[in-house]
């Protein structure tokens, strides 16, 4: 179980992005984190991976401080060292049980070519393979569906569901709410540096409708005013 207690993170002295956040994530579940741009989703994920200094509070995994040993992290825009091949990149992550060739049957990546020749979607697929290869109990996937075609999105969806069956804890952010509501067991809505609502996916659909109707109404008012 991941427990986040009283977590606060600031950029500089004034700008508090995460403010006394409390969240509990059960082992072996798929969790979606949603929020508007700048809500602090990536900051929260970075903190879970130990890449952001925490001001107060803490993040625990099974009662102990969470470490990188337990987490593999897919960043929104994966970057690769230039002039190395996909195979060479994957070989950096040690896991003898991971059959690269077999896994690549899903993604059809030209793993003998240098990564610089890959398209954005191919780079994302390579990063996803590296995250799966690490075989850690927690997977953090920041916008995993960005830049991918429909077929690959479905493949990733299936992989995530299978990983859940293997008792992995998965945390996903996405701007496509439908994807999350279809895939996740729980959805956490982040606003003003706090988790405003944590709901099971079925409950979230009503909340989502209400929330986005409000936001849309606000925008429509402003657009009408601006274009009048």
């Amino acid at each position, binding site marked *: 179980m991941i427990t986040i207690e009283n977590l606060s993170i600031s950029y500089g002295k004034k700008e508090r992005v995460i403010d006394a956040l409390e969240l509990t994530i059960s082992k072996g579940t798929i969790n979606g984190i949603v929020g508007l741009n700048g809500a602090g989703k990536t900051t929260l994920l970075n903190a879970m991976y*130990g*890449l952001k200094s925490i001001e107060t509070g803490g993040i625990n995994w099974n009662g102990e401080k969470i*470490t*990188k*040993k337990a987490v593999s*992290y897919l*960043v929104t825009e*994966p*970057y*690769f*060292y*230039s*002039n*190395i*091949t996909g195979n*060479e*990149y994957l*070989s*950096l*992550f*040690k896991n003898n049980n991971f059959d690269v060739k077999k896994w690549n049957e899903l993604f059809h990546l030209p793993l*003998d*070519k*240098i990564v*610089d*020749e890959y398209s954005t979607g191919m780079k994302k697929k390579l990063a996803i393979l*590296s995250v799966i290869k690490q075989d850690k109990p927690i997977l953090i996937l920041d916008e995993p569906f960005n830049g991918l075609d429909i077929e690959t999105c479905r493949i990733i969806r299936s992989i995530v569901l299978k990983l859940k069956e293997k008792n992995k804890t998965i945390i996903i952010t996405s701007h496509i709410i439908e994807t999350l509501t279809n895939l996740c067991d729980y959805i956490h809505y982040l606003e003003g540096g706090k988790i405003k609502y944590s709901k099971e996916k079925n409950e979230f659909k009503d909340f989502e409708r209400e929330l986005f109707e409000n936001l849309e109404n606000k925008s429509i008012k402003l657009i009408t005013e601006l274009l009048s």
Partner: protein
Amino acid sequence: MIVNLINIRFKQFYREIHRIGFFRIIVLLGISFMLFVFLYLQTSKFPNAMYASMIVLLLILMLHTKREDKFFLRINCNHFKWIYFVEYLLISLVLLVFLLIHNFWNIALLNIAALVIITQLDFKRNRTSYNTRIQKWIPDECFEWKSGVRNLFPIIVIIWLIGISFSFFVGSVPIALFILGIISLSFLEKGEPYQMIIAFEKEPNKFLYLKIKQQIALLSVISAPMILSFLIFHYHLWYVPFIIFIIFCILQVYAILVKYSFYEPESKSAAAQIFIGIGLVCFMMPIFAPLIILLSLRFYVKAKHKLSYYLNDYY
């Protein structure tokens, strides 16, 4: 537009200087002063003034081939070649002033003409997937070498072969060792994504030790045949290639420590490049050699601190 972009360049330069820190700025200023005195003295006599110009032009040509903002400038500025020219003129300003002081106006004019020619050159890098057998011999963890050898494979092979084939000339092997040493230092100029550091799952000390060990091992592998061929023809000068090799081993250690002291994921640190350049210059002027040892100690502490941000969970 040109003035605005040059202004941005000055701001970028100021930011980098700011990042370097006060103490190191003082060291940098001292070394720069010595370099300028050296350049001033060299530009006072004829052939040396010519050689100094050629070295500066070569450095600018290398900069021009490697700069990554060409596409940005091309799509945002109609007169992008003017921007190149103004920038290169500013870089070679000190040299041009020294040449004019010593009445070598003809060399200065040739220099400016060469700058114009350089701005017209448009090298398109052909990114291909070289997968030679050599690539497979390089351990996967040495991704800097895999990448660097793949990028400069033909140049490295040509220099290596020339070094060995002409080893009966006394200067052939030392020059080849020197050039390959510099090339191998350039492999370290770019910071890898932090995932690639974390993938090692080692604490900072062990990580640095492994990097240094691999770097020196690979440098030894490419240097050994050249050193052996030198010894066959010039055994009485056995110490020459060994001194060059040891200097570059020290520089490799220094460069790794500098790289991780200024490490920023997925980017090149201008400060790191400046300090690696200083390291190279220091070994050309032996009076400064001890400075590299002192700087290495300082950078070791700094690199450990920087890496602990990513590898703190592996102690």
